[in-house]
């Protein structure tokens, strides 16, 4: 029971909702160790994606949705998160190819491609206190779950909960990449906003999968 276009569209809608709900929280996290725009940027981006979902047609694939998200984020988000998430969704779209249904292994592949895209553009390593610290454990967990025979939903749930742990684990870190790095030691004690938004998006993916499964 793989995840199809309905799941992908639902993921986007849930992403837009969850980012909008957490807009202030993301702004606040970013204000503490950055410049206070992460929530605004992500919200602007996902709100811009919503109307474009109408352009999808009967034969659209999850890959088409991911590509739509990628190009929209690239052209509306700006800042660091725009190109990084943009690249992530673009690489994910390529990994999804024209599959109409994604199983656990495909999901793990998509997440891996997304994470690799972020690292390619941003050159951050794990522990640099960036969104990579949410994505890397998420990728590992999804891959392990898939190997353990979990279904797509299970893989996404594993990814989401690992992403949450990863995001929380950024708190004590001293940032080496992104704006928070300018604070030096003072960046410790705050959660990275990009890691938080990553966890929110992966949770939305898992929630959309659960809804698909339930339906």
């Amino acid at each position: 029971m793989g995840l199809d276009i309905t799941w992908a569209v639902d993921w986007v809608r849930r992403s837009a909702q969850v980012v909008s709900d957490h807009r202030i929280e993301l702004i606040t996290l970013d204000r503490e160790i950055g410049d206070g725009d992460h929530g605004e940027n992500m919200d602007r981006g996902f709100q811009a994606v919503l109307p474009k979902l109408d352009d999808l047609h009967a034969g659209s694939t999850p890959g088409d949705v991911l590509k739509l998200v990628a190009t929209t984020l690239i052209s509306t988000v700006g800042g660091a998160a725009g190109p990084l998430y943009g690249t992530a969704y673009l690489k994910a779209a390529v990994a999804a190819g024209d599959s109409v249904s994604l199983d656990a292994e495909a999901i793990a592949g998509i997440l891996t491609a997304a994470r690799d895209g972020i690292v390619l553009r941003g050159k951050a390593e794990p522990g640099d206190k960036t969104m990579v610290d949410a994505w890397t454990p998420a990728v590992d967990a999804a891959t392990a779950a898939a190997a353990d025979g979990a279904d797509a939903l299970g893989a996404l749930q594993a990814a989401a909960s690992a992403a949450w742990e990863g995001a929380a684990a950024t708190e004590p870190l001293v940032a080496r990449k992104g704006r928070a790095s300018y604070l030096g030691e003072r960046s410790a004690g705050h959660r990275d906003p990009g890691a938080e938004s990553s966890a929110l998006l992966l949770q939305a993916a898992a929630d959309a999968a659960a809804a698909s499964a339930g339906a």
Partner: protein
Amino acid sequence: MKKIINDPKRVVDESVAGFGAAHADLVRVEMDPIHIVRADAPIAGKVGIVSGGGSGHEPLHAGFVGFGMLDAAVPGAVFTSPTPDPILAATKAVDGGAGVLHIVKNYTGDVLNFETAADLASVEGIDVRSVVTNDDVAVKDSLYTAGRRGVGGTVLVEKIAGAAAERGDSLDEVAEVAERVNANARSMGLALTPCIVPHAGEESFTLAEDEIEIGIGIHGEPGRERIKLEPADGLVDRLLAPILEDLPFESGDRVLLFVNGMGGSPLVELYIAYRRAAEVLGERGIEIARSLVGNYITSLEMQGMSITLLKLDDEMVELWDAPVQTAALRWGR
């Protein structure tokens, strides 16, 4: 939040529209995607110069579009790098066949978005070179970090590279002098008060009545250190010490001294700081050959200042003195 604005989401659009209306003799404003170009762009055979970045640092960059400086400016949302589309549009609008230089402040977002735009422009056959400014000594430089921020030095790079392009230098030459200015510029800033990003509506950080932030950037971010407020002379000394030792600047050097306001500090204070900075440089045998005092790269209404020193060579002086005609910097015509 007290601001002379309408809808926080329309701050940049409305401000750019007002800028275009006020300076129609100098610039043309395009609203979709948003960018500001020289009224006479593109100029055949001249290297085009494009800069941009988040809004909230005015007059940077739109205020520097015009004869002898930038050919285009690309404003992002407040404190947010613009996306590739408007950067690409601006690049195309100013390409006069001699290539385009991107002047990019070193922030992850700016670097990535300009990178994408440059790639797209190359695909369209435009020769693009990028110079990334990173003059802020408050940030430790290392291969493993995001590196130093581009701050006050950016203004000097834009003026000098702009003059080189205006006199007909090639893309390589313009890029070279831009790199040289960046390599010889060092800056450091401090804030007495935070600023308020319109969409956030809250102060970017909180400071007690007797506290200030040392080593701030230009995005309302906290600095490296929080200290008690000191007399102006002590503050200037704190900014100058790491600047002087970093390059280092030494006796016999000729410099441009740039005392920049962060937006909310009155001019009287900037000149008090200038006085002390000139005194310190004099004591060290460093000659102030040129200077600039005012609000040129700001953080909205933040009170504070930054100091930039540029070690000059003869060519830089000549290019600095060359005519410039922009909304915020103008001489010689």
